């Protein structure tokens, strides 16, 4: 029998004493024994660290038709799940993992985590707020400027060898001074407001409740918000109340000179309505980081020059992904060591 720190064996009578066991700190053991299921190869550094600090299970190691078996085989070991914006702990997964104690999401949005089921099972949930606020806000403004000033369009034009004459251009419209409306004045919404203000933009918003910012005009409904702005930026979280919040009425109110920017979740906007509004020129322009069925963006938009489409890159910088990964790791560590979680979802 191998001696452990907790259970030293007594040396048998008349023999040499057994060598002392290697001392394995309880903390490291607690961490190494935490089985973590990573749902998707979302970040190499995160995966590497999960593997070295915990007991890592990679969901994609099992073939798509072998997933149920994979979960069954490892269900007693898996006590944690790491998901992200696209792949997370839904009801089916939670049901398949009876030992699940914590879901640590590599994202701030957790619309794909079945929160009621987690609450019911006493499963704790953590996300990655704050560390990605700046990058997402930066992208929102970057998309607004790109859409209004048609930067990707200019880049395409030049790369296609179409720039033949010096005076060849189309007039676009100025970003500075535009009326910017923000749907959701949380951390990200506020960071967007601060940046837009530096461009002389006026700020209005809609939120569940009015916030203590007298310089920002509060609207109680989204249609009025859209009717009174030039650029509408969607920055709220996705839940049952906000699903398809930006609907046809809102887009018509925003109008043929209006610009819609979405850095929240695709399903905050009625995507088929968005496509027809753009194709029929009822909506002026759009800058989209998120879509209802990622990684599929509506192909009907690909031929339009007044749309900027990026593949959910809101927090996709080296700096921020590392910070997000570290936060996931620290939350899991805290859980393993019975310490307070850093960023639990209430």
């Amino acid at each position, binding site marked *: 029998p191998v001696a452990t720190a907790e259970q030293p064996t007594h040396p048998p009578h008349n023999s040499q004493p057994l060598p002392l066991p290697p001392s394995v700190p309880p903390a490291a053991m607690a961490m190494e024994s935490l089985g973590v299921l990573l749902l998707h190869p979302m970040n190499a550094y995160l995966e590497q660290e999960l593997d070295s600090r915990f007991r890592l299970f990679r969901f994609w190691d099992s073939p798509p038709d072998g997933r149920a078996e994979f979960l069954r085989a490892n269900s007693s070991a898996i006590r944690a799940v790491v998901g992200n914006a696209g792949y997370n702990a839904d009801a089916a997964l939670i049901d398949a993992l009876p030992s699940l104690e914590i879901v640590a999401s590599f994202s701030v949005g957790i619309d794909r985590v079945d929160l009621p089921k987690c609450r019911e099972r006493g499963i704790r949930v953590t996300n990655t707020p704050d560390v990605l606020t700046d990058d997402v806000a930066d992208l929102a403004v*970057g998309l607004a400027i790109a859409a209004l000033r048609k*930067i990707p369009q200019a880049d395409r034009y030049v790369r296609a060898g179409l720039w033949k*004459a010096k005076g060849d251009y189309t007039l*676009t419209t100025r970003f500075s001074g535009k009326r910017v409306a923000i749907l959701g004045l949380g951390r990200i919404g506020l960071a967007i407001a601060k*940046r837009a203000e530096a461009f002389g933009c006026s700020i209005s918003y809609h939120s569940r409740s009015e916030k203590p910012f007298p310089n920002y005009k509060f609207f109680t409904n989204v249609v009025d918000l859209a009717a009174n702005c030039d650029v509408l930026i969607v920055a709220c979280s996705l839940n049952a109340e906000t699903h398809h919040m930006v609907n046809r009425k809102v887009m018509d109110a925003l109008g043929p000179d209006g610009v819609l920017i979405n850095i929240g979740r695709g399903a905050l906007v009625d995507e088929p309505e968005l496509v027809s509004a753009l194709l029929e020129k009822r909506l002026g322009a759009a800058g989209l980081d998120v879509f209802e069925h990622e990684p599929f963006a509506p192909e009907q938009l690909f031929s339009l020059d007044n749309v900027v489409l990026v*593949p959910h890159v809101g927090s*996709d910088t080296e700096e921020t992904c590392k910070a997000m990964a570290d936060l996931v790791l620290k939350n899991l560590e805290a859980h393993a060591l019975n310490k307070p979680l850093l960023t639990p979802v209430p």
Partner: protein
Amino acid sequence: VALLAVVATLKLATMAAAGGKPAVLLLRPVDAPFAAALRDRFRVLDLYAPGQALPALAFVAAAAAVPEPPRATVIWGGVRVDASFLDAAPSLRCVVSTAAGLDHIDLAECARRGVAVANSGEVYSTDVADYAVGLLLDVLRRVSASERYVRRGSWAAQGDYPLGSKLGGKRVGIIGLGNIGSRIAKRLEAFGCIIHYNSRKPKDSVSYKYFPNVHELAAESDVLVVACALNKATRHIVNKDVLEALGKDGVVVNIGRGANIDEAELVIALREGKIAGAGLDVFEHEPKVPAELFSMENVVLSRHVAVLTEESRSDLRAHTIGNLEAFFSGQPLLTPVHADSLAQ
């Protein structure tokens, strides 16, 4: 001042009423609203009038020979105002340029002849600053590159696009802290950037860190933004040494003039990974763009459109008319340029 303004208005009104609207030599194409605004106030001698076939200098000489020849001209960057131009139209006492830069005007020669020069003032500054920020965000966050990826169906087929780089916390070195550079600084501060700059002289009114030369600026910056005028001192101000000092994680944004950067060296630096990326609205030999850039994912290419918005168009119209009216009523120009001021 109020009395002077009344006198000026009367003088202008008298000339118009007498059918003697002052003559203006128009040497750039203008859109319909601009043309109408000019014709309402002035007798316009239009190089670009339909049917007008004389080449520019011949037209200028012909205009100079009419009774009551034009004392003011409206030009753009394509018109070289030098000794031979001024010789062709000795009646000119005022040049109003609608261009953003002044590299096409021999300011010393104008000063020698007592010809006043007005520039476009701050008409373009906001749009150019916005565009610079847009280009920088595009390069760092790969907006145009990842857009191409989506449009060709690669997101579904190949997965996530490679990571970009965070703007917040970057040290941005602005070359030229004039009307445009200062607006860029103010905007980027809101994104959490640290502003460094080089200018002919340090500016007491700002707290940004000043660098006496562009090499030192580049050595302590993550981003270089070219926002200065083009003149003898600033030609190729971003050269091979500066690019090396900027380093392999550095990004260059140019909304000045193509010739502010040694373009051949820039292409080499990008090809060899000596810098991380570039956002370029201007090139040394427009509309020629080095073809090697077309296949680079870390470069954003634009076609000299940083000033071109509806708003700057109408601002320019109002501003140009304002300068002309000031001149003809004996008032100081709104935005006079002096030979020694060299823009910033």
